[in-house]
């Protein structure tokens, strides 16, 4: 009824000035009443849905604006701890102060670590050339579907380049919403079967921005102890109350959910938003979540589910739709389904799929979306083309799964290692089997872990330094035989729980069975050679 007001407000200038005088007097009188804010709040809570409440809220808002403007530059000195110094003392203190260096130079080990990073010369793909001149079988790239280097995608990308240029030169709010972005969002939503989807310019930043867009201070997040770094950072930013459940243990999840419900009941806590945050296939070790059970729990305890499918989207399911396809669960039952366009569709960026409202909310509130330029149009079109290809070529995923089976068939038999990853995971992690079976998380000791701490009750023990060194030897050995693999690189000291050192194989549909066999055998031989020496 009054929406036309915005467009005519300028023409209403005379009216404004008339209204202004009366409003100003009202406002000022109200401000002068001591404790007016308290009274207002009291009235507000006791007269819910009362017309009077609405009017008072208005004045409150005006009051808030007023005070905000008054106190724009107030120094926030903590009076209790503030020590008064004279100018001279301050100068001395300033002179005396010596800061630590901005960054310590790298230690020789760190230097070596950095130098061991392989560099590919020319195109990325299953058989790239390294800067050493060697052509290798590449089991590091997250090119699960083998779309990297696809000629059809290249042609589309070039076509798009010639129509759109490269950069979008603006955030989505300011002329950075290009039709091809809208198209890709639509394609992804349609592919997964959700109402809508939203695109981010980087896969990593997607989830760490999605979580704080929804979860705020006072909300509750229940998360897996093994979540990846991006999720940890998202949780940190959100400032929500966090409870942790044992890694990939839905029984533990249920216990935690029950505990929270009980506690909330006891405290008569007000209704807040509650989220379960976990991954489809875990980036850390490749284990897979039991999605149907997870969905059941979420409905039972009335949580919203934020599921990170950065690894599983594009690598499991009949056509690569991820866990929801694999378990035949409607994707619409996952409230926020986050995936990586970079991994799954061999382009760049990430997405979050969900209901219309969930997506709309992010368009206004998610900082990595709002405050960042949208992705280059040609990469968006490449991804759309990727969706098309996946949709129409189920053989890609069956080949991928076949390749994974081939590799696992050879490595699973080896007794100097353990493989925590799910048999369908295209990301295969390899742990060194320690002589003493400390790796297995001891169960049956009875007591559950403390849900307020990310650390499990009986953390597995391992010697990071030795294991990393051995694994690097395996990597080097495999490389000498023409197979490029990598250790899972970790930010040691920054992760909330240290991940166990592992070798990370990324299987791709672009390999032939022969190549998979060859690579697996090379890795096997390298493992046997390096780990055999150890004993």
């Amino acid at each position, binding site marked *: 009824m009054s929406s036309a007001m915005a467009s005519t*407000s300028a023409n209403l200038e005379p009216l404004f000035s008339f209204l202004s005088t009366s409003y100003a007097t009202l406002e000022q009188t109200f401000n002068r009443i001591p404790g007016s804010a308290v009274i207002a709040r009291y009235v507000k809570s006791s007269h819910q849905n009362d017309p009077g409440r*609405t*009017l008072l809220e208005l004045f409150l808002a005006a009051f808030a604006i007023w005070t905000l403007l008054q106190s724009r530059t107030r120094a926030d000195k903590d009076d209790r701890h503030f020590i008064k110094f004279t100018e001279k003392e301050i100068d001395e203190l300033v002179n005396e102060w010596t800061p630590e260096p901005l960054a310590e130079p790298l230690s020789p080990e760190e230097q070596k670590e950095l130098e061991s990073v392989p*560099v590919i010369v020319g195109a990325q793909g299953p058989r790239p050339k390294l800067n050493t001149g060697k052509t290798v079988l590449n089991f590091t790239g997250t090119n699960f579907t083998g779309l*990297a280097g696809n000629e059809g995608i290249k042609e589309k990308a070039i076509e798009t380049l010639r129509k759109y240029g490269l950069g*979008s030169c603006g955030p989505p709010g*300011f002329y950075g919403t290009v039709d091809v972005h809208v198209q890709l969002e639509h394609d992804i939503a349609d592919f997964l079967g959700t109402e809508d989807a939203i695109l981010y310019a*980087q896969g990593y930043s997607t989830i760490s921005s999605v979580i704080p867009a929804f979860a705020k201070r006072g909300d509750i997040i229940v998360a897996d102890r093994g979540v990846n*770094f991006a999720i940890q950072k998202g949780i940190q930013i959100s400032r929500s109350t966090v409870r942790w459940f044992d890694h990939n243990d839905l029984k533990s999840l249920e216990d935690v959910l029950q505990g929270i419900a009980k506690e909330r009941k006891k405290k008569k806590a007000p*209704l807040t938003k509650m989220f379960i945050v976990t991954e489809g296939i875990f980036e850390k070790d490749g284990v897979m979540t039991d999605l149907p059970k997870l969905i059941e729990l979420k409905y039972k305890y009335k949580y919203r589910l934020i599921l990170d499918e950065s690894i599983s989207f594009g690598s499991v399911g009949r056509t690569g739709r991820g866990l929801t396809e694999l378990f035949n669960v409607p994707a619409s039952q996952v409230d926020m389904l986050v995936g990586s366009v970079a991994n799954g569709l061999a382009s760049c960026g990430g997405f979050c799929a969900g209901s219309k409202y969930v997506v709309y909310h992010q368009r206004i509130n998610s900082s990595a979306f709002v405050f960042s330029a949208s992705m280059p149009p040609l990469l968006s079109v490449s991804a759309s083309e990727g969706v098309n290809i996946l949709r129409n070529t189920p053989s890609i995923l069956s080949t991928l799964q076949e390749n994974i089976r081939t590799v696992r068939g050879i490595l699973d038999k080896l007794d100097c290692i353990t493989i925590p990853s799910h048999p369908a995971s295209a990301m295969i992690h390899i742990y060194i089997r320690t002589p003493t079976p400390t790796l297995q998380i001891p169960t049956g000791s009875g007591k559950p872990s403390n849900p307020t701490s990310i650390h499990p009750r009986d953390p597995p023990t391992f010697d990071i330094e030795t294991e990393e060194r051995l694994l690097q030897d395996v990597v080097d050995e495999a490389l000498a035989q023409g197979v490029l693999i990598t250790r899972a690189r970790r930010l040691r000291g920054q992760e909330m729980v240290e991940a166990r050192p592992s070798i990370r194989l990324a299987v791709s549909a672009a390999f032939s069975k022969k190549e998979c066999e060859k690579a697996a055998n090379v890795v096997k031989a390298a493992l046997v050679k390096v780990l055999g020496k150890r004993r």
Partner: protein
Amino acid sequence: MSTAASYLSAVKAADARARARGETPVATPALSFSSSVTTSSEDTILDDGEVVSSDALSYPTIPPTSEQVFSTVHTEFGHCANAEYRYTSQHPAGTPVKPHIEQDPPYYVLFTTYVSYIILILFGHVRDFTRKYFNPGEFKHLIPHDGYAPITSDFDSFYTRRLKARIDDCFSYPVTGVAGRTIVLNERKSKDYNRTFYSTGRKVRALNISSYNYLGFAQARGGCADAVEESIRRYGVSACGTRLEGGSLDLHAQAEALVARFIGQEDALICSMGFATNSTIIPALVGKGCLVVSDELNHASIRFGVRLSGANVRMFKHNDMNALEDLLKEAISQGQPKTHRPWKKILIIVEGLFSMEGTMTNLPVLLELKKKYKFYLFIDEAHSVGALGPHGRGVADYFGVDPRSIDILMGTFTKSFGAAGGYISGSKAVVDRIRVRSHSHAYAEAMTPPVLTQIIASMASIMGVAPALPTHGSTGTITKGRIVEQESPEPYPGRAPASILPSWMDLPPAMREGTEGRDRLRRLAFNSRYLSRALEKLGFIVYGHDDSPIVPLLIFNPGKMALFHRLMLQSNTPIVIVVVAYPATPLVTSRVRFCVSAAHTKADIDVVLKACDWIGDVLDLKHAPGERWSLEKITSNAVELVRMESQKHA
């Protein structure tokens, strides 16, 4: 104004003359050559039949002469051969930086602005109230239901629903094509007061003074696009993987070496998203026990990163060096809160050019303070790199100081370079430390080859390449993840050594020689100064530095924002603008933010000025004190206006 027909015939005649003389036309400094675009002029006036476009956007007002052969597409990068319309972006040596004074509007403007907000809030509440009773379905997602708390409560979302929604037609306009000098809008309308939009199917070309396309590198034709095409053929579109786990390409090493040269720092590192450059790298530099001193108007990505780092944060008043010094004195003398232990380190984070204000950081004073207070300095050059300085190297170049006196120079490629992502540069020790500690290096996808190529090509064309590109095979080798340069480099701000460019990259001569890049810089400098000063002479309140390509024009009243936007879009030559309001700015200072580009011609700026002049009268926006010029006087004395000594901020 010339018509399309007369323009085309003039162009044809010019072409014929050139061909009759049997010479391939030479590049004037204004021009860019490209291997794929022939020099025949029809190609340079690309227009889709289906796009509604006015002649002023498709064809230059002045037909070219026989000497001038433009190879850029006029709608992407305007044709402007007049060497008068050039300027150098540089701080006059030896003069102090004048403090920026923000002009206040007359009192009645402030007053009506407040009242407008009060009315908007009042109406919003009345509507909420009635809707709750008469149409509860609409509120379902805002109130608890089935035991779930709402994602946003009706109270939290009040501002978006009742205030922002009124002007939602100004935001997220769907577009298509190149975000260059012009942009094509996929026209949309709303039948339900902005709740939903539907597409009319019409495509409308509009003058684009909104994109962060400072140097005009958003182009689908030209040397950069050609290089990108070649890179897609060679590399595909993805780097597949993180930098530390097999996603590092030779292109990364080359781009990083080039960025380090360009910025004038020892080393540099690249991240696939500008936002993430701040949000994932600041935590690698500071942590518990450190203090971050941050300008109150710093970008969201900086706040995100600082919050993740766990360091203490103090804010100081925007660009106020006295406030900063006071704060430093207090912080250093008091030490850490409660314990009073000395800070481990203090990092000051400012932006080179502030994206909402157009203000420039006071670098000379900051460096003075740095000597005394021993803090580390981090400058986010997202908007200033490429856009400022005689060589386009950013604020350090603009003020003529050694870039290495600044610890960390960060920037993004989304703006001046028409690409995506960001970089961090500094000493080798610092950058290496970031390589092993930053979140994105270990866990985020690496930058893609087409983007890397755009960065390399555009950056090299600003720098110029020395010497001529060698023949294939002799480029620098990559050892230990780094490129080893063969020749000793030219001192800063020198040209790009050819050995660090990909051997297959065949840049056209105007780009290799740096003439095209220089011309872009000089066009941008002229356009920026011209728009900002002209708007002031028209009587508008304009914020920011004269040399800033970001020109905010103050509107104040919230209702006028949408009107300004709509009127600009409906003017003879449609113009798209960006309006920003609370919470991106303080409540009262709603504004239009122009982003000038090298792709604009003087005629384009005139078009903007004309539209503003008219709208400014209609909406009563001309409140600035000082001398006023008429529109005619301004447009005919543009060069004098630009070259005038600075009067503002005196």
